[in-house]
């Protein structure tokens, strides 16, 4: 690998790693999502430093150029990250569904309790008015 390419790859992977760590440190990114990104950054760094490994992988997967291997690996990681997001979105979807339903049911429960309360208040008032304290009457 030409030196220029090597330096460029190292700079990119290091900045990516630092950026992710910084995001996690500032709590902008949750740990559970950071690991796949950190893995990506680390692998780029390893491949940039260890050219023989890259060549070996290139040979292994039957690619012609080491650059194609890098592109290919990059693509695989992007797909993995997209799948991870899809899983999370499905999960969130389900949680939103349950929350919405719960919200509707609770709202209904509150309305019921309020209605019960106003009707018992009304009954009590009527009892007080009739001077029939202690005597229960169905209205």
């Amino acid at each position, binding site marked *: 690998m030409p030196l220029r390419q090597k330096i460029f790859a190292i700079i990119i992977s290091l900045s990516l790693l630092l950026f992710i760590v910084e995001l996690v440190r500032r709590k902008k990114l949750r740990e559970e999502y950071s690991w796949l990104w950190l893995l990506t950054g680390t692998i780029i760094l390893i491949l940039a430093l260890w050219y023989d490994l890259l060549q070996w992988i290139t040979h292994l997967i039957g690619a012609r150029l080491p650059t194609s291997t890098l592109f290919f690996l990059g693509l695989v990681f992007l797909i993995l990250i997209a799948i991870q997001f899809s899983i999370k979105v499905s999960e969130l979807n*389900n949680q939103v569904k349950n929350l919405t339903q719960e919200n509707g*049911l609770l709202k209904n429960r509150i309305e019921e309790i309020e209605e019960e309360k106003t009707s018992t208040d009304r009954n009590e008032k009527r009892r007080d008015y009739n001077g029939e304290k202690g005597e229960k009457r169905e209205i």
Partner: protein
Amino acid sequence: MNSLAKILTIIPAFNEGKTIAQVIGGIQENAPYCDILVINDGSPDTTAEHAKAAGAKVIHLPFNMGYGIALQTGYKYALEKGYHYMVQMDGDGQHDPQYIKDLLEVVTSGKADVVIGSRFSKNNKTYTYRTGWIKKTGIILFANITSIIIRQKVSDPTSGYQALNRKVAKFYASESYPCDYPDADVIIMLHRAGFQIKEVPVVMHQNRNKKSMHSGLKPLYYIFKMLLSISLTLLRKREPLNQRD
């Protein structure tokens, strides 16, 4: 029919302001022993007001979540309130309330756990319902697939006019229920969970006011989604859901 049984009619409604009051009136007339619950699925129109004025209980969802989710909310409510039997129907006037007693008769007598009102059933003499050809093909296709899988004749798997008991309601309220597009796959799931399914002929009225759930490209998506859902249902392990009580 056991007069002590508590029965709830569940109507998921999205923008049914024009028809909902009429539907509720029809239920009160034909099945006065039923409580009526309307799930207002975030409709911006007057659905909720009209339903309430007509004498139904109304549950509001804060935004439009779709038919299946609204329906499931109704089942969660019914279970919480201890209803014994539930009838589900549409709020657009497509389902004729005079068949509620036919549906309920089968579940309350214990002949089946869930009854489906079919517009295409063979003993149905009033064969008036017309649909687009893609939807029709879809219905026939899935009616056949479902019938083969559950080894029992099913003529209208898309019908949302159903009556069921508490055991099935528990299944509908569980996480296994496919909220995004409940259809033929639900019947297969019910069968695999060991529930007794029956069909009863009903008449469905055409709805002219509204664009159907099955219009435009939707029928194609419907066919695709159903094929996927049915295959995945078959790949899953059987869950003896009705054993849990």
